[in-house]
């Protein structure tokens, strides 16, 4: 019984990490109908940048975020405005293919630069610290930090979308990008901002992933799949639904792992497919973030 509680708790916390991965994907899709196949690979890029910062400057990974997050935001803005904006249009193929190409370039580029060796980021004692909840159940400190970060990020995004001029402009652009121009909104710039935010959040996800487990250039695509599953399970268009989706996925995976390590990830995929069959619109669908 307690074992189960422990497992489920771990899964819920893992959901926070998955929500961080999923948020950026959901944002760019909502604002400009763009699915970035290289989404996961960008998070790994961020992890490697953090690795470099940690190795050269001796900073802790958390401090490294101060450099990595703004840098990735800039990368996102540049990639969007120079490469991706021109692919946007009624045809879904160009953005898919360009981002797929980017994914391949990123993976192999990182491989050339850093080799295929597994790396990790360490936060010292915090990595394995845990808080006992009584009755033999304990929850890790770092997973709590991750979950709390996810909640804070989602809260910040929600605030951005509903209480700021920029957020209003993003929502208007996602509704009707032609009429948005009549308001003086420059689409191209705004899409760049959306991608910048997406990359900033995925950078946090990448660094936290690197602390939680080991990583190498090839693990990007799996993050994309988990992010996507979290979005679909949660329901398109809903920010907090993505957190719920992440938690469902996280629990499915951890429960699966505890039953049979070889089937852990598969359990997540199965949960996703189950939701697809039973509730194709997700658990908390919203067509708009209203």
């Amino acid at each position: 019984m307690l074992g189960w509680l422990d497992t489920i708790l771990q899964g819920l916390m893992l959901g926070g990490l998955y929500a961080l991965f999923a948020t950026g994907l959901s944002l760019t899709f909502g604002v400009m109908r763009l699915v970035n196949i290289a989404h996961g690979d960008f998070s790994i890029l961020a992890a490697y940048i953090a690795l470099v910062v940690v190795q050269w400057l001796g900073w802790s990974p958390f401090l490294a975020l101060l450099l990595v997050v703004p840098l990735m935001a800039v990368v996102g803005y540049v990639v969007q405005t120079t490469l991706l904006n021109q692919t946007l249009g009624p045809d879904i193929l160009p953005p898919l293919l360009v981002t797929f190409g980017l994914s391949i370039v990123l993976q192999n580029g990182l491989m050339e630069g850093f080799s295929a060796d597994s790396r990790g980021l360490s936060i010292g004692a915090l990595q394995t610290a845990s808080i006992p909840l009584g009755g033999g159940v304990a929850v890790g400190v770092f997973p709590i930090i991750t979950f709390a970060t996810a909640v804070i990020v989602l809260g910040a995004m929600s605030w951005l979308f509903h209480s700021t001029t920029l957020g209003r402009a993003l929502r208007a652009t996602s509704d009707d990008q032609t009429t948005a121009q009549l308001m003086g909104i420059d689409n191209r710039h705004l899409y760049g901002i959306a991608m910048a935010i997406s990359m900033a959040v995925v950078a946090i996800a990448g660094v936290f992933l690197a602390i939680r487990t080991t990583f190498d250039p090839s693990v990007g695509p799996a993050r994309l799949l988990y992010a996507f599953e979290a979005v679909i399970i949660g329901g398109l268009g809903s920010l907090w639904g993505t957190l719920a989706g992440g938690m469902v996925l996280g629990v499915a995976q951890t429960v699966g792992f505890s039953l049979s390590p070889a089937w852990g990830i598969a359990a997540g995929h199965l949960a996703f497919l189950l939701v697809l069959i039973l509730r194709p619109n997700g658990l908390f669908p919203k067509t708009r973030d209203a």
Partner: protein
Amino acid sequence: MIQYVVHRTTRLSRYAVVLWALAIAGLCTMPWWASRAQIGTTTTFLGILALAQMWNLLAGFGGLVSIGQQAFVGLGAYVAVIVALQGGLNVYAAVPLAGIASAVAAWGIAFLVFRLRGAYFGIGTWVVAELLRIVFANTSSLGGGSGVSITSAFAGIGRWQRDAFSLWIAATLGLGAVALVFALLRSPRGLAFGAVRDSEPAAESLGVSARRVKLTLYLISSAGCGMVGALLAISNLRVSPDSAFSVDWTAIMFFSVVIGGIGTIEGPLLGSIIYLTLRQSLAQFGGWYLIILGVCAVLVMRTAPRGLWGVLADRWDIRLFPYDRRVSAEETK
């Protein structure tokens, strides 16, 4: 008086038929005059050609971008493994069996993934492929995660025969794929494909069932990929889940199609040649060849979205595989 004539071939395409016949003859006689390496490369090329045509059928003509066709390549490879390990059937029967198995699997998978649209459909197919990879990696009777060798099934077959059979199967699949796509598009069905891709509501209003068209294309494409998967197993004699279900298969398919020219029949043909040439010549640079391939794909999508063939065909109005209908007005007395 003006008479309107519908042309379904071009002069160049009629001459090209002769060239194709010669090329096919040359191809099939290779076991008798070509080196082992050359036969191997040609077999690989024909397999890639088949895959590219199947992906193009789905994406270029059906508007369905799948990132998960590797599910069927892997499935087909494992059908070959099962046939080989069972020992009851001739191992070459695995090819058509793989096609059937893949089509059946595709029918079931469509039920799930057709609930998703656009790019999310693409990723959904990828998830299914990943699930299949895990399933096969956990099936120890089929070799589990480290894979299995099927050399035993070829005990009585000599090396020359193996190479020749692989080549002929690859030729059937590769050239057959081209012929199939060509025939499909020239048929009245072919018009339906284009209509659905261009505008589903409009096509539906004319009585074309978009869902049926998409399902048909998905089944055909999957069957084709499955058969290539079986060919893979037969040629390499070794199958492992990580290589059989690798997303690299989709990468190969989409590179060939995009660089060559999506939505045409000549495009994937050209693209397969370019891909293989690039791979052979850049192989020595390891991971760089993939980086270059990725950059090429990005550049082509940005500068020539209709691919290399698109550029050539537009400049010189060439059609080697004409499937459209052109109307000309001719004066008659």
